């Protein structure tokens, strides 16, 4: 079956195209060359396009994504706007006007991506005009090498609110397209996008070598950069069973396919899970988070994944589903080695359970070269509970970037439990931490720096928490 989608208001049909082809290349091959490739790995945002989607609030909205990381058949049934579809004939869109006026473009190569990101932000429900209304995260996934960002920031800050009658605003009055299941073949490679788990397992049974994709923000990078090719692809992005958001008395359950930006939005300002609230803005960029998932982040089992240290510190359990039923595995038992997990063929991650009560004192730290949109050199999810007697009842010191898998420092945790969270116990824990891991040296940092960070972050945690705990280290 060919796929079809709405592109700048027009119906587009594609057939026979290799499903490894990205939306970006498809657009460019059609002559829509406004959308640019700057990196092909989700870092630069020059390829951003805006999808019309239903948000967690039930309302229709524009959601920016990196088209270089979207496999073409994923777009079936969807609706999207590229930079070419933003202006009204000869009249520039307010976002475009602002960029022209402030000098927000020099070479102009990054500009289409910024315009699309700003376009999505412009129509964000509840945005107020002016400096305070501007969410810097909205352009965190766009790189510019020329301007130094100041004029672009000014352009966003000076945006007014959309006017009545704006066709892009009116579009949001109607529902976003609802997607159907996809069964597509291009260049001999089948691509499936089932809607339920029930439908997923027979496909996996029939195509045991099929590769799972959810947000694609990890695996499509390999398609683009290393020419990785799959014999069959199963996209989980529309499987409704993976979209759980269930806050119960005993736990919060998050579906494996919920995009990170939706988790961020749901948690924002609730104070429910500070560590998770802290990690998400530091996790790549908004453009990536609009598509990246927790399921994908855990499944790749990268030692430098950002969510695992937090989830480990929260005692997360992974719900694994297969044709034969479901099983639960504690996250600290889930990773078995470098990029390896307990997942067996035919299994997939359905959801992540975060048991309550959540830790009382907790903090996420990310050490990286850059604040925005960077990958961790070392990440840490640190959490302690303190009883009425002032003694630590639970301690979780979980790290990324220091071992083959994300890992907890059990020995150091034990030094804290049963003692006051004071200088003496912290010193003992630090001693254990100093030899807890044998990290590697690479381009992100040296082994000795990573080791130093393991220790130093506990110290920082103690320092940052001292006011909360009333006992300085």
């Amino acid at each position, binding site marked *: 079956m060919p796929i079809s989608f709405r592109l700048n208001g027009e119906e587009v049909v594609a057939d026979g195209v*290799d499903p490894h082809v990205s939306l970006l*290349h498809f657009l*460019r091959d059609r002559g*829509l*060359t*406004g959308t*640019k490739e*700057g*990196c*092909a*790995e989700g*870092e630069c945002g020059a390829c951003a396009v805006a999808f019309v989607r239903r948000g967690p609030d039930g309302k229709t909205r524009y959601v920016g994504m990196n088209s270089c990381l979207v496999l073409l058949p994923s777009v079936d049934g969807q609706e999207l706007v590229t*930079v*070419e579809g933003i*202006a009204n004939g000869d009249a*520039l869109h307010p976002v475009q006007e602002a*960029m*022209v006026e402030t*000098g927000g*473009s*020099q*070479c*102009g*190569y*990054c*500009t*289409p991506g910024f315009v699309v990101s700003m376009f999505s932000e412009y129509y964000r429900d509840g945005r107020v005009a002016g400096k305070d209304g501007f969410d*810097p995260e909205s352009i*965190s996934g766009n*790189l510019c*090498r*020329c*301007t*130094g*960002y*100041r*004029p*672009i*920031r000014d352009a966003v800050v000076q945006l007014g609110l959309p006017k009545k009658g704006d066709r892009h605003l009116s579009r949001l009055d109607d529902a976003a397209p609802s997607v159907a299941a996809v069964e597509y073949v291009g260049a001999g490679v089948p691509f499936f996008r089932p809607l339920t788990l029930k439908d997923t397992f027979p496909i996996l049974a029939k195509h045991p070598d099929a590769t799972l994709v959810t947000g694609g923000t990890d695996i499509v*990078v390999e398609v683009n*950069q290393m*020419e990785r090719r799959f014999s069959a692809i199963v996209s989980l992005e529309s499987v409704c069973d993976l979209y759980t958001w269930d806050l119960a008395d005993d736990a919060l359950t998050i579906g494996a396919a919920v995009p990170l930006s939706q988790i961020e939005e749901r948690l924002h300002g609730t104070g429910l899970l500070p560590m998770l609230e802290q990690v998400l803005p530091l996790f790549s960029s908004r453009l990536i988070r609009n598509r990246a998932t927790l399921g994908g982040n855990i499944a790749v089992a990268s030692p430098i994944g950002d969510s695992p240290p937090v989830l480990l510190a929260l005692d997360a359990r992974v719900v694994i589903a297969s044709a034969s039923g479901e099983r639960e595995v504690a996250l600290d038992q889930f990773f078995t080695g470098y990029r390896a997990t307990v997942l067996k063929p035919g299994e997939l991650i359905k959801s992540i359970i975060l048991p309550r009560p959540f830790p009382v004192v907790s903090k996420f*730290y990310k*050490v*990286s*070269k*850059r*604040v*925005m*949109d*960077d*990958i961790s*050199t070392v990440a840490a999810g640190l959490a302690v509970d303190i009883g009425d007697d002032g003694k630590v009842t639970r301690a979780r010191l979980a790290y990324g970037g220091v071992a083959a898998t994300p890992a907890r420092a059990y020995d150091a945790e034990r030094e804290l439990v049963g003692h006051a969270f004071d200088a003496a116990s912290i010193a003992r824990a630090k001693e254990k931490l100093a030899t807890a891991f044998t990290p590697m040296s*690479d*381009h*992100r*940092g040296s082994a000795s*720096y990573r080791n*130093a960070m393991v220790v130093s972050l506990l110290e*920082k945690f103690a320092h940052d928490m001292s006011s909360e705990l009333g006992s300085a280290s």
Partner: protein
Amino acid sequence: MTHVGKSISHESARGHVTGAALYTDDLKTRFANVLSAWPVCSPHAHAKVVSIDASEALTMEGVATVLTGDDVPGNGNTGPARQDEPLFPDVVVYHGQAVCWVLAETELLARQAVKKVKVEYEALEPILTIEDAIAKDSFHTKPLVIDSGEVNATLSQHKTLSGEVHVGGQEHFYLEAQAAIVYQDESGGFQVHSSTQHPTETQMIVARVLGLSSHDVSCQSLRMGGAFGGKEVQANAWASVAAVGANKTGRPVRVRLDRQRDMALTGKRHPFLGRYKIAYGDDGEIFAADIELFSDGGWSLDLSEPVMFRAMFHVDNCYRIDHLRVVGRVCNTHKTSQTAFRGFGGPQGMVVIEDAIDRVARATGLPPEIVREKNFYREGDRTHFGQRVTQAERVTRVVDEVKRDADFAHRREAIRRFNETHETVKRGIAVTPVKFGISFTTAFFNQAGALVLLYADGSVQLNHGGTEMGQGLHTKMLQIAADALGTPLESVRMMPTRTDKVPNTSATAASSGTDLNGAAVRDACQQIRERLALVASQKLGASKDDIEFGDGKAWVFGSPETTVSFAELAKTAYLQRLPLFATGYYRTPKIKYDEEAGSGKPFHYFAYGAAITEVEVDRFTGQYTIVRADVVHDVGDSISPLVDKGQVEGGYIQGLGWLTTEELVWRQDDRAKGMLATRGASTYKLPTLGECPEEFHVRLLDRATEPSVIHGSKAVGEPPLMLAISAREALRDAVAAFGSGGKRPEGIPLGCPSTPEAVFWAIQNVTARVQKVAAE
């Protein structure tokens, strides 16, 4: 003037924001049967190519051919300065070097086919560091020397200190990677579309590779998605590959590098090693400096020699050092061929002297800004290469003004108090000046041409030799042309830069684009205007000298009520058989440098600037934020203030990236020796919005006319990059605050780039010393 001096938007801004502005690879779909090329890259940094077997790839559907050295009809060497860049090498000399190229119907197919090409190598030992190159005496050039005054004698008469600083390289990361499309046109010539800063050189090298003359090849550079020097000579090879492919297959061929290949295959800012010995006094005066500079040139000479010269010319920055010797050496290593990059060696030279200045400050216990000011050039001073420092008072002026803008004195004090009360975070602040010499140091490049065509309906096509890469050159040229002709901006259409319009052009580089091309454009426009003035004088019955032009009209001086339109003048001139086109030309006067003597006047003038940066550093991780940056920069009388401010801001942030987050790492392990580990946006970290300080104030210096340049302006492309050195020195200042204060002859060593890790170790270093001192 109507247009010059006004803040107007970039001439392509509308195209940028709508996606309508085209770049070289966007033209792909205009060529129905275009072939895509993909390189077979060496997995060794140094190896003999024993054999290439492409037979399996050639059997794949959609693969047209595989290009090897046998397909080159002419000279297969694309080296611009020296014939040292074989397009199809017998010996690979850096990791990733292209050995041969697959041409296929689509890029996807070409990429698949590349995996099927079998190349046999015989690995050889690579040289991967400056130290290793020095040890093995592996250099591209003889030592370059500037020796002024009595260095040895002065060093022996005063207190001295010695230091060493490694300065990291930098990836250009123009957002648009290298691209070229070549086809044979209906007249039999070769048309080259290339994202190049130097269309003439690309034309010349493509012709050489094809065994043709320059007149057989035309090169167009429509616009570039950034270049920063990275496309000054390094666009030539890709255009040449496409040309060889087009010649062999008779079809249009496209080469575009993806980001990974672009980073792995193309040159960067040169990493440097600087060693210095400084003679100084207790009041901070610097009496003498003996400096050695080593650059890592990579595998070919490229522009490394002029880059080293510029480093040597800027190793004084704004400081008068009467006895100064600087010796420069370009190391030959098995890495990408390092090349031009905004600043062109100047930044590295300046980092070395600023490092030394801080050492003097720590050794004497004086605030660094006092030591800097103590040594500033004054009116009448000459540099170590003998050029008089014109407008030397501007050093003091920009520094004073930026200190006032930034409220430096108060903030210095506030930071001192902040640091007294904060244990785990410290703040630092620094003010650093910039003096940057303008002109190509290769003298013959300092010329430019323009071709202006006036049509009988009054519309104008403007051609000049400069290329547009985002720096706003075309915008300024339109302003200059419209004013020179007295027309509205809309009457003048900027044409794509092509070698069949203006021949023998220079690279758009060395910040000189506006100075050179602007003067040539004005020259051409003035000739046309002269002719039109003649026509107008007849029509209006006045002397030619009394005719005024503006807003598409002409009138007699003093009687603006009676006008004749520009279009009518054009038409009449045509009917009177007057030529309506003109070529313009400009060459920079009075520049000369004697390499042997190490003295002369290599620069037409200097541009000045100063910046103050404040940072906050976390002791636990070494992570930091740029709290605020203030800049006062000298662009002369700005031709286009919005453009110029953009250059200053963009330059500062790009320099900031170079000195902080942008770290190039080449693997040293045996599994991939010499491979660039940071060859993508996920591993190589440019500044994002998050690095742009929330308080960022840039002001252009007023009362800054430069009388010897068009409309009193100054070049702006490169100088602002070096303003970011203030951020590095501010980091050092914050690191120092973790120590005990007081004199510190050993200085505050700080790695460059100053990544959080580098800052962390620097803090460890000073605190360890505090503990050591306390223990004693």
